């Protein structure tokens, strides 16, 4: 098999991993090739609009596990390939010198045993770091069930280590990934957390969940994320809209990946991490799923209209963050600006703050953007929903029935 054929198989198998971030590591160049960039660098964007920052490949797609949603499950008849450590090093270094990539994302099917697979991953990355003196970014996947000492060894070589949660609930995992369990997955997260330092996974750990393969609600998913953030200090939880690659009685027959739902989950995830929201504020057992038509923050605002409109020239930083359309950057600009002048609607525009959504929820120096009578739930909702519908209709080929998630 040629290198090109191997790359085709092993990049194709790795493409469902959402993470491609290369940020968070300031690894210095020590005379060899490469260095980290703390903000991360995107080197290209593929046809699906996702950033390409790392050479994202599996070491092998040979796998002893039989996860029902996975294209590489043991019982699937697909072409299999294995990269040797030297081959991975050669492609990584050649791509890096030409500035195609920021580093390597190395994952693998479970080959022979979790420990054997981990040893091979370690061998590859050890070569890169110590034979070729490569200081670019490396993100590796830990294999659930591998021994602690191997996780510790790998953590010292890479910038980020992650282990996939796969499904938002233990039941889903039992049903769809019978060879994996939460205990093994969380054990690895715990080992990484305990050892985290400037030299051990400096860019921290992350995880990924598949959305729409199991029956879990958005409420289940957000609770799971919130638990993972709090317990294991994860940097990111990635959500990956389920793409139907296998037929199985336990799997839903989705024609299109639930991209809009994935989008809402990412929005809510940001609300947890940067906007100080709690899951309970956004969802509850009676309303377990996000409204597909309105983003979670606007949805919250519409349900708490009595707290609005907020006066831009007086509201606290945290109150400003609650306004749909205003994020941390805009809130900080407003706080700085109002120290030296009184902010009007025109000023907001000049400052580069979009008032398209915010205008319904704010006063500027006591002035509402229209007459006060329009400050009503129905009116605002109608306008915000209209905007979403336009956006959704813009995306050709994506037909969404308007209420399919919220019903």
């Amino acid at each position: 098999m040629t290198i090109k054929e191997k790359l085709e198989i092993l990049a194709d198998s790795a493409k469902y991993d959402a993470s491609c971030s290369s940020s968070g590591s300031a690894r210095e160049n020590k005379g060899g090739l490469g260095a980290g960039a703390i903000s991360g660098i995107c080197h290209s964007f593929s046809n699906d609009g996702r950033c390409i920052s790392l050479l994202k490949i599996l070491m092998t797609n040979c796998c002893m596990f039989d996860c029902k949603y996975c294209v590489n499950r043991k019982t699937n008849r697909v072409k299999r390939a294995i990269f040797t450590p030297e081959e991975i090093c050669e492609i990584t270094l050649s791509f890096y010198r030409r500035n195609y990539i920021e580093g390597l994302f190395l994952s693998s099917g479970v080959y022979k045993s979790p420990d054997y697979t981990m040893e091979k991953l370690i061998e590859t990355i050890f070569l890169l770091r110590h034979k070729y003196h490569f200081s670019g970014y490396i993100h590796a996947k830990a294999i659930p069930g591998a021994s602690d000492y191997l996780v510790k060894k790998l953590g010292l070589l890479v910038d980020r280590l992650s282990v996939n949660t796969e499904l938002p609930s233990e039941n889903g995992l039992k049903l769809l990934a019978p060879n994996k369990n939460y205990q093994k997955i969380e054990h690895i997260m715990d080992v990484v957390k305990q050892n985290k330092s400037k030299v051990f996974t400096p860019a921290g750990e992350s995880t990924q969940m598949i959305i729409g393969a199991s029956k879990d609600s958005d409420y289940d998913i957000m609770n799971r994320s919130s638990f993972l953030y709090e317990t294991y200090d994860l940097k990111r939880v990635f959500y990956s809209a389920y793409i139907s690659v296998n037929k199985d009685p336990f799997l839903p027959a989705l024609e299109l990946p639930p991209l809009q739902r994935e989008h809402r989950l990412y929005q809510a995830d940001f609300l947890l991490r940067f906007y100080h929201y709690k899951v309970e504020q956004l969802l509850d057992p009676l309303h377990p799923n996000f409204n597909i038509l309105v983003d979670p923050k606007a949805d919250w605002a519409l349900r708490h209209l009595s707290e609005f409109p907020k006066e831009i020239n007086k509201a606290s930083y945290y109150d400003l963050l609650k306004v749909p359309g205003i994020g941390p950057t805009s809130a900080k600009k407003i706080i700085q600006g109002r120290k030296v002048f009184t902010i009007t609607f025109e000023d907001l525009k000049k400052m580069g703050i979009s008032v398209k959504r915010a205008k319904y929820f704010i006063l500027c120096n006591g002035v509402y953007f229209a007459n006060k009578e329009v400050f009503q739930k129905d009116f605002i909702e109608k306008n915000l929903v209209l905007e979403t519908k336009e956006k959704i209709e813009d995306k050709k080929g994506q037909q969404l029935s308007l209420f399919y998630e919220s019903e």
Partner: protein
Amino acid sequence: MKASNFIYIYEDSLEELLYTIYYLIQNRWKPIDIVSERNFVPNLVDESFKVKSNLLNIYEIWKERVGSPVLQTVKTVFLSSHPKKELILYYFLLHALKNPKTIYQHRDLKCVNEVLKIEKYVHRETHKMKGFLRFKEMKNGFLYAKMEPENCILFSLAYHFVRRMPNESFVIHDVKRNIYAFYTEKKLNFVEESQIKKLDLIFSDEELEMEKLWKTFFDTIAIQERENKNCQRNFMPKKYWKYLIEMGP
């Protein structure tokens, strides 16, 4: 001499521009425009006047009066290709002299917003090009890249690659401005075409194979069910495609 309402001409360098602005503000002359000598086209209506610096320490003078963050912003904006950058900087510095401590907060002033917008654009393009630049390997081991950015970002870009590839030899060519960053034997110089001409630039044996491999990876990594070319173009505008191997035929 009635010196307001002139077009002022400076000699193509940041020092000269800083001096010109300093000179105008000191004399309380209000320009209708400030133009570099290279870009100046005389017209029949406006009178023009060329200012020539006679100060050596113009940076120090400005630094003392407005502080180094403002001066840093001015340096960045000067790299932009904005046609009115000089006049915008004049107003920005005029206000910075009045409010050196709070100038960045004054988002009610047009010149402050303009300056911050241009500064952000230059930084963004520098950041993007750190990702979008593509080197080709030559037989003599040199890595060679061409680019056509909007702003003059070659300097900070070259230092970025020196930091991460100290043992390589490379050339980065800003095609529109026809300037080259030339790095070899751990020395970085900014040179003109004649010095690059001496290099023997033939692709290495592996070059085309690596480009094919990269294209294979690029095509494979996209998930067809998620295709979204609008999103792709938003992040990677067409103006950068010319030298992107993966976007070529």
